[in-house]
């Protein structure tokens, strides 16, 4: 132990071994649960949406540049790969939106009992599916 702070990292694993505590929860240590799965999925969709903003920037910049560059973006987005990416983008957006609302409710101090946590998880998953399908149905009808 080089530093007194190291004392805070001494812990025991479930099999009794002495281990250095991880700084943040490690997926390979915790048993997968509904709560942890939704938590890490919030993070994954957040990172994916960050990458997805590049599409929005590309679309805006192309619209501000020329007819040719706007035609390129439109053509790429209208391929089946483009639609697949946009579908994933929609699903990630609605998941992060719904799970984010769940986090805001927690931040306000509500819904911490385990049955409530499981119920809100079901609501988030159901709403994500429904909103994603609804978005594409509306898109298919009006376009």
């Amino acid at each position, binding site marked *: 132990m080089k530093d007194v702070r190291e004392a805070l990292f001494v812990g025991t694993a479930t099999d009794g071994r002495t281990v250095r505590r991880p700084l943040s929860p490690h997926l390979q240590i915790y048993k997968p649960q509904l709560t942890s799965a939704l938590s890490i999925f919030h*993070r994954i969709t957040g990172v994916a949406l960050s990458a997805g903003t590049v599409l929005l920037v590309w679309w805006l910049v192309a619209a501000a540049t020329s007819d040719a560059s706007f035609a390129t973006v439109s053509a790429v987005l209208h391929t089946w790969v483009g639609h697949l990416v946009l579908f994933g983008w929609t699903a990630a957006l609605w998941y992060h939106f719904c799970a984010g609302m769940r986090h805001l409710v927690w931040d306000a101090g509500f819904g911490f009992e385990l049955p409530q946590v499981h119920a809100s998880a079901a609501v988030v998953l159901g709403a994500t599916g429904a909103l994603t399908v609804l978005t594409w149905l509306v898109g298919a009808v009006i376009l």
Partner: protein
Amino acid sequence: MSTTPTQTIMRSGLGRARGLGSAKTGAAHWFAERVSSIALVPLTLWFVLAVFRLAGAPRAAVGAWLASPFNAALMLALVLITFQHSAMGLQVVMEDYIHAEKTRLGAILAMKAVTAILALMSVIAVLKLAIGG
């Protein structure tokens, strides 16, 4: 109600005794992330409706739509707050998973640079369409 004593401070006893803590700006970061997320709730709903209107539309229609100051202002708000929220979230992810200090600092600075440039590119594109279109 339970009668067992509860610990209301989420720090270990030893950490409190030693006066240890992050002593950084975690609370401000956490709060700003929440504030931006609240702003993004109505902006995201508006954006989805905007996409319904503009998906597959010709370029001239995008320009005409952004010529409305209301649409341009909301688009700027959406882009700026999205990139702010995204940069704050990505920073926390990097702080959690990149343990080597120099690599972590470098990654965070690079990410901030990329998100800032992307945000500025979007702002200039929106302004060009809003004012010049």
